[in-house]
């Protein structure tokens, strides 16, 4: 379980999170919504212990991770599979070496086993033809799919974390990534947290929605509560959804 207890965070003088509190189970499908610069990605980084809050507690499975050092954070981080915005592939390595990275560097598996698994994973995400390509030769959609394959290569985790998985993608590729995310969650039977500003993506994939505005959580609820909300900022934000549904 993930618990945020009165978490405050600032980048220099700019306060990004102001007393954020929520809790989430690993099997939930959660969307963290909000406009750009509202601190959505910061929440994801805080969950992984990549940054430390100025105040408050972040408890993962009963452990307050704000008190842990880098060594102690390793098992916490390995409970999650993360797909950063735009993939975060190692640009000096070809696709297959990106996917092989964790198996080679951490698991120290033999080459034969690594490449067999790499082929399986690339096949699963539908980019098997790209295994010899360098990241700069990939399209945006392929980038995300390779990143998902790399996240899967890190082994069984408790929860997927996606940072803007469809940002910058055309509608067809967005649909592909969305169905891949849903398919993985169904097959692996684990939950995910999606950071996005595209309400339609969140609506299609998630059943819980957290809306952040000015560093605070303005809304936290399910689909029905989201659609019936009377909070002006949230209503305004989800307008796009009504246009889509009506369309």
């Amino acid at each position, binding site marked *: 379980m993930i618990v945020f207890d009165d978490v405050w965070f600032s980048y220099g003088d700019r306060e990004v999170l102001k007393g954020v509190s929520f809790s989430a189970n690993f099997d939930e499908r959660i969307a963290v919504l909000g406009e750009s610069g509202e601190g959505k990605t910061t929440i994801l980084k805080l969950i992984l212990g990549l940054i430390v809050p100025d105040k408050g507690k972040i408890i993962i499975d009963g452990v307050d991770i704000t008190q842990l050092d880098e060594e102690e954070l*390793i098992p916490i981080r390995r409970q999650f599979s993360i797909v*950063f915005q735009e993939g975060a592939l190692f*640009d000096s390595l070809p696709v297959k070496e990106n996917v092989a990275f964790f198996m080679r560097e951490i698991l120290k598996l033999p080459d034969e086993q690594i490449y067999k698994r790499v082929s399986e994973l690339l096949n699963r995400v539908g980019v098997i033809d790209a295994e010899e390509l360098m990241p700069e030769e990939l399209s945006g959609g392929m980038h995300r799919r390779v990143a998902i394959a790399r996240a899967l290569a890190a082994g069984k985790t408790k929860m997927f974390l996606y940072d803007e998985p469809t940002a910058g993608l055309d509608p067809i590729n967005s649909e592909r990534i969305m169905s891949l995310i849903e398919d993985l969650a169904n097959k692996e039977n684990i939950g995910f947290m999606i950071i996005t500003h595209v309400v339609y993506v969140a609506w299609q994939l998630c059943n819980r929605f957290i809306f952040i505005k000015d560093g605070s959580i303005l809304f936290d609820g399910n689909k029905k509560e989201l659609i019936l909300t009377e909070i002006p900022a949230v209503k305004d934000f989800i307008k796009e959804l009504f246009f889509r549904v009506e369309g």
Partner: protein
Amino acid sequence: MKFITKIQKNIYDLQNFYLICINSLLKLFRKPFYLDDIVEQMEYAGASSVFIVSLVCLFVGMALSLQLSAELSGLGLKMYTGKIVGIAVIREIGPLVTALVFIGRVGAGQAAEIGSMILGHQIDTLRVYGIDPIKKVVIPRVIASVIMLPCLTIIGDLICLFGGYYIAVFVSNQSGSFYWSSIIKELTFENVFSGSIKPFIFGYLISCISCFYGLTTRGGAKGLRTSTTKAVVTSIVVVIATDFVLTRILLYALGFSV
């Protein structure tokens, strides 16, 4: 208030810089060792820099010899060109010029590469996997710089001396054998030690500064530009200042009178 915040930020940055310097030494002999990364960085820092270092040193050697020949011939002391070129190049100009070229080529590259890894969340990915960025990213670059800068300095020194030889013999009409013999006479322990200790220290400082600015990159393309510029400017200032301090210490330690 802003002034105090700025001072606090500078102290915090300095503390982080020292942490990188210290950690890169403390974690040097701790497993795992990323040998492939070290070799890759050595290739980038060393083999790929030979041409540019040679080119710059050739012209510096020629210019130095030209200036000395012109000045010394007026005094009737042209035959000392080799001796002075030898001392200047081995003790001072070779290590310094090579270090400055190294900053422009390798230091800037290291800062930009790590900065781009930060902006692209590649360093975060390493941390999520439980890989220490200091071990995987910083230490290979520090080792490569500390090994390759002295090697490049030796090559740079030789090319500098050849540049000086060309001018002394073919422009200033001096004896080539006398030029070389007066340089060989200057290859004393004091001179060679004084010139060869510097590149190790410069290499360490340049890579630590570059990695520090790379790791602290924030704010997109503009931030990357700022951090790369800061890495180059700071390295140049630190290397030149360190060169002065080292020269003073070495002259004293090796018994030269000033």
